[in-house]
């Protein structure tokens, strides 16, 4: 796991939804600490959170993209113009100079929590 997703000393975990509110290979938008965050669940039940704002489209839409894999990297294609963003680190797979912020995610007793506040 890359540094951007790691839990830090000051991480606050905010409960967002229950696991059954999100089906596999789909995203939902959530409001986390005032920010629109895109929450994804992969086919293997890994959970990821990215900022919902697509830096190419300048719109809050990433949660609505198609989720898939490139090689073994899980990614979401921005629904607007299809730029692919790796779910693990938020880096655009076609243009590594662009990255969307990521947030750590954990599941506690069926509740999905997103971490804010640290790196």
């Amino acid at each position: 796991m890359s540094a951007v997703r790691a839990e830090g000393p000051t991480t606050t975990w905010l409960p967002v939804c229950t696991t059954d509110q999100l089906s596999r290979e789909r995203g939902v938008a959530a409001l986390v600490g005032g920010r629109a965050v895109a929450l994804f669940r992969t086919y293997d039940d890994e959970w990821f959170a990215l900022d919902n704002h697509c830096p190419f489209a300048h719109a809050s839409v990433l949660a609505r993209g198609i989720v898939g894999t490139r090689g073994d990297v899980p990614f979401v294609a921005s629904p607007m113009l299809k730029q692919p963003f790796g779910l693990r680190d938020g880096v655009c797979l076609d243009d590594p100079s662009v990255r969307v912020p990521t947030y750590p995610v954990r599941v506690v007793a069926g509740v999905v929590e997103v971490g804010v506040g640290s790196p």
Partner: protein
Amino acid sequence: MSPTASGRRPRIVVVGHGMVGHRFVAAAVERGLTATHDVVVYGEERRVAYDRVALTSFFEVGADALSLLPSGVYDDPRVALHTETSVVGIDREARRVRLADGTTASYDELVLATGAAPFVPPVPGKDLDGCFVYRTIEDLEAIRDAAARPRADGSKARGIVIGGGLLGLEAANALVQLGVEAHVVEMAPRLMPVQLDGAAGATLVRHIEKLGVHVHCGVVSTEVLDDGTGRVAGLGLRDADALEAEIVVFSAGIRPRDALAREAGLAVAERGGILVDEQLRSTTDPHVWAIGECAAPAGRMYGLVAPGYTMAEIVADTLLGGTAGAFTGADMSTKLKLLGVDVASFGDAFATGPDALELVFADAVAGLYKKLVVGPAGPDADGNPREDAWVLLGGILVGDASSYGVLRPLVSSGMLLPENPEELILPESRGALQLGLPDEAVVCSCNNVTKGDLLAAVDVDGEHRCEDLGAVKACTSAGTTCGSCVTTVKGVIEDYFGEIGKAVDTSLCEHFPLTRQELFDVVAVHGYRSFTEIVEAHGTGRGCDICKPAVASVLASQTGGHVLEGEVGALQDTNDAYLANIQRNGTYSVVPRIAGGEITPEGLIVIGEVARDFGLYTKITGGQRIDLFGARMEELPLIWSRLVDAGFESGHAYGKSLRTVKSCVGSTWCRYGVQDSVQLAIDLELRYRGLRSPHKLKGGVSGCARECAEARSKDFGVIATEKGWNLYVGGNGGATPRHAQLLVGDVDTETLVRYLDRYLMYYVRTADRLQRTAPWIESLEGGLDRVREIVVEDSLGLGTELEAAMARHVEGYFDEWKATLEDPEKLSRFVSFVNAPGQPDPNITFTTERGQIKPVNLDEPVVLGTSIPVGAPR
């Protein structure tokens, strides 16, 4: 805020109706401030607010096109706008403003948006006839009139701009446009001294001189010369010969218009501008606010419009009782095209930070100067120092600023630069292959990708080795915006592969080594019902945005069922996933079906009412129906339940499926018509509605050979004859228009429908992904004759099977939207936020234009609570 003690509604007086004053009023209306407050605006100029940023385009487009409020009034009756009315005094004690005509007006809150005025240095002769500034439309009109006055000997007037900054160069640009010989005189040793370093400035000078502007840097003006009659004769310079000219434009900077505030005893900043706090409230008087160029938050004024807009939003929010907004500075990065030359400057452009290093690429011949300012990256997440890791601090680009969009966001992102950061500014190496088009030819104009760029991407010896169209699109962005260039892009790549003898890969994508047709066949043969089954048996990985929608389309054609049912829902492309078309700001458009373009007055009224009640933008489409734009995702079910109740159904504007069957009025009304074209168009549209296909499908029916329905520009076109119908196939509009060709003539309606069933179903089964009927027919061996063999002559004996497949489609049809409304499971996806379903996404904002809403895109995500929520309450 509650009504005043007297019971009167509290009143906000706005002084100045420029860009920022207008934005404040718009925000006050959008956010609902006018529900409790009256707003009175006094503007000194003759015109209502206009786009000053685009001022120079006035000569081309005229004043009307620049207006920010073309109707001249705000729709909201609570806003009163007075133009040509100057405020001349403020009585803070009595909370009244005094107008030029001596009358006064009271306020509860006073918002000053008086902007800035050009600074005219105190040189002798500055008031002579022929001296101008460059700020208002009237200034430009005056300059235009002066430019039109020939000199005594009949030759063109000459002009000098004093000041070689951003605005000075704009003014020089204007003079060039007016056909005036233009000189720029700049005191500093280079142009745009605030944004550019010496080398960048020198590169810019070379570009600008090529365009016919004479540049004089490091030169001080001493006086404007008089021709003896009170008119400008030229400009005297220190240590240099005087320049002759009839026009002098001062562009030596701007000064905030803070005189009103000074006289009223409000604190102003040392270098001018009304001193305000982070909420833009005067530090002297809590009922006075200042926004835009006249304001100086923390003592600093901002000469760009974006910070002004932010200030306007914050004041509107604060007056509504919000506590979240705070103005803490603004990004002063600049990118512009000056006289056709790209110039950008961003971040720490002068490498002032400690340990900042400069990487420079310069090519004097090509007129390029690109500089990156980089600094060492801080420690990593675990606190360990990092060697040889760099972050971007700023940069300057002259001559080619195409990388600005990539570089600018890197600054302040803290992201590590790639190992060789200089590659970010080096021009890409280009293959020298000659394939019809020259390498410089721009193949994709949306993304400015040349043929050379494409070849570089596929070049076998080079770094990038894109193997197919998908990879090339991904790596060059060619074809990713409007899509109209995809065929050309594909052609260029395939030509190249052909040239070097490489087999062209026809795989759908990295997950499937199959074409769409092969995929269609394996699904049919094995009877698969889910993506997982298919990818596990015939592919790898978990799919992508190419194969998932293709599989979804294949499954829909073969099995029917709802496109949002279970796992299939996760395969749908952007628009299908929400049964609506996504728009640039993340909202959606709604298109109810209006079969054949025929609609009753009641139907029109319902659409009008729905649009009005949800505040949607409405437009008549090119497909004879009505599109309603700007619906938030969570509003779609509400909108559709109104439409469905009134008898409307999905128009499938979002699907790769039948769109419309366009009709002309036909024999019912038209004196030439020989058949009822409207009836046939409606019947065909209702027959094929909802049919999922490789690409969208369109039809048309005309009532006679005059062809008013443009049926031959459709995938299937029907034209009435005395004896029946002529059927044409394979037409389209778009980037590569094709006229449909005659498949069969003079058939009766029943035969026509049978042939159409076969034709469409054969297309659905065998065409490639995103291939419309015209290229599909071309790709078949035998072309149109092949289609005729199969459809009319039934030489493969497929006819009955194709007809049966279509019959199943017709029987299985149901309205997707109605079904969605009846299913809580599907409806549960139509929420803005999973944990705050009723909260509108604050990232979605609108302005208005021509009396309707218009989306605004935001560069950065909005954070509720810690910065300004900019959503219009709806």
